[in-house]
């Protein structure tokens, strides 16, 4: 009945550990292993019950000790599961407030945005030729027409290559078919100011602040819940690559946590100036064929900011 631990230990190299479990990500591994823990716990408790039933003559003292073992197994299993889920960020994090305006969130980000939503951060990195800046965008891939929250918004903040904030370049809609059609019609109208300061919809292609028609290299970060699970690299002078967030983290530490706050504050301010909510509302209303629509700032932007804040929080504080 002895349970053999897997051939794994904490001294094992991460690469080796990953190879043993195929291509699963931390979230999947955590879920698989917590289920296994539940199964083993259940087996252990069941075996104790069987032992007690099959041995009616066991003295009270032995029964008490067996019950204590079951309780201990239950507690160990619970604590381990909790710790694993915490590590994999599968536990609901406490709500984060931005300027006291965010609605309280009690459900997982993914649920809130719909199970099928693939949320990603796009960071096209621009070469030195393009001005030593790269863009930071948050977007989702769900069609706007299916979203209960209305148009999807890209938050695109420009940073200098040294990590310092440059400006909110603009934000773009990720529209559904109908939304795209409407936007194209709008763009064709002479003298019509585009919905966004940026003059093109930036979806799967890069965006250059110098030449808007030019495609630039871009690296996609998978954004699973509030967790950044892929790496963004920035070229350094000697040609090595470095994670962008590592740079931000270093700088944030040097500046005693102020840098992270600055980024967020500047992004929020920039977005408030850039995004024309009335126009978003109008496009969405037309795309839905509605007479009136109640779509506020909070529904459009704040969920994005919250995701971003969590990502920054995680990436800048990770040891």
């Amino acid at each position, binding site marked *: 009945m002895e349970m053999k631990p897997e051939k794994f230990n904490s001294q094992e190299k991460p690469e080796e550990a990953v190879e043993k*479990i195929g291509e699963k990500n931390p979230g999947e591994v955590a879920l698989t292993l917590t289920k296994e823990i539940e199964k083993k716990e259940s087996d252990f408790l069941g075996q104790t019950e069987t032992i007690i039933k099959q041995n009616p003559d066991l003295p009270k003292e032995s029964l008490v000790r067996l019950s204590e073992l079951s309780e201990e197994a239950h507690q*160990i299993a619970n604590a381990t599961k909790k710790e694993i889920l915490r590590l994999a960020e599968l536990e609901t994090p406490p709500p984060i407030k931005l300027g006291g305006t965010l609605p309280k969130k009690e459900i997982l980000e993914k649920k809130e945005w719909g199970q099928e939503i693939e949320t990603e951060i796009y960071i096209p990195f621009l070469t030195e030729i393009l001005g030593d800046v790269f863009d930071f965008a948050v977007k989702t891939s769900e069609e706007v027409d299916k979203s209960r929250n209305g148009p999807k918004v890209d938050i695109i903040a420009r940073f200098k290559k040294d990590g310092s904030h440059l400006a909110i370049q603009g934000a773009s809609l990720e529209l559904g078919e109908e939304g795209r059609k409407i936007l194209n019609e709008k763009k064709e109208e002479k003298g019509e100011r585009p919905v966004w300061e940026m003059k093109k919809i930036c979806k799967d292609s890069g965006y250059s602040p110098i030449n808007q028609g030019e495609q630039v290299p871009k690296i996609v970060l998978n954004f699973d819940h509030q967790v950044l699970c892929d790496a963004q690299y920035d070229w350094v002078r000697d040609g090595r690559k470095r994670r962008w967030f590592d740079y931000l983290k270093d700088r944030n530490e040097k500046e005693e946590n102020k840098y992270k706050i600055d980024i967020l504050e500047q992004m929020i301010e920039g977005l408030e100036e850039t995004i024309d909510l009335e126009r978003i509302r109008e496009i969405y209303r037309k795309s839905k064929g509605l007479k009136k629509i109640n779509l506020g700032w909070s529904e459009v932007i704040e969920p994005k900011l919250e995701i971003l804040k969590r990502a920054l929080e995680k990436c800048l504080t990770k040891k």
Partner: protein
Amino acid sequence: MPIINMPEEDKKLISQIKALHNKFLLELNDLEKRRQEILAAQRVDNTQNYTDKNTKLH
């Protein structure tokens, strides 16, 4: 996600998760040993009682 593309952070995270799972298995294993010890002690007691009773009969 192919392993080759998996960020180091994820690899470390998986490593930590697996280590926790492994620790749980070891702890459960220890509980199982303790359970066997309780049962073994009981068997010894029963045997001893049986022996004592038979000795007295003789």
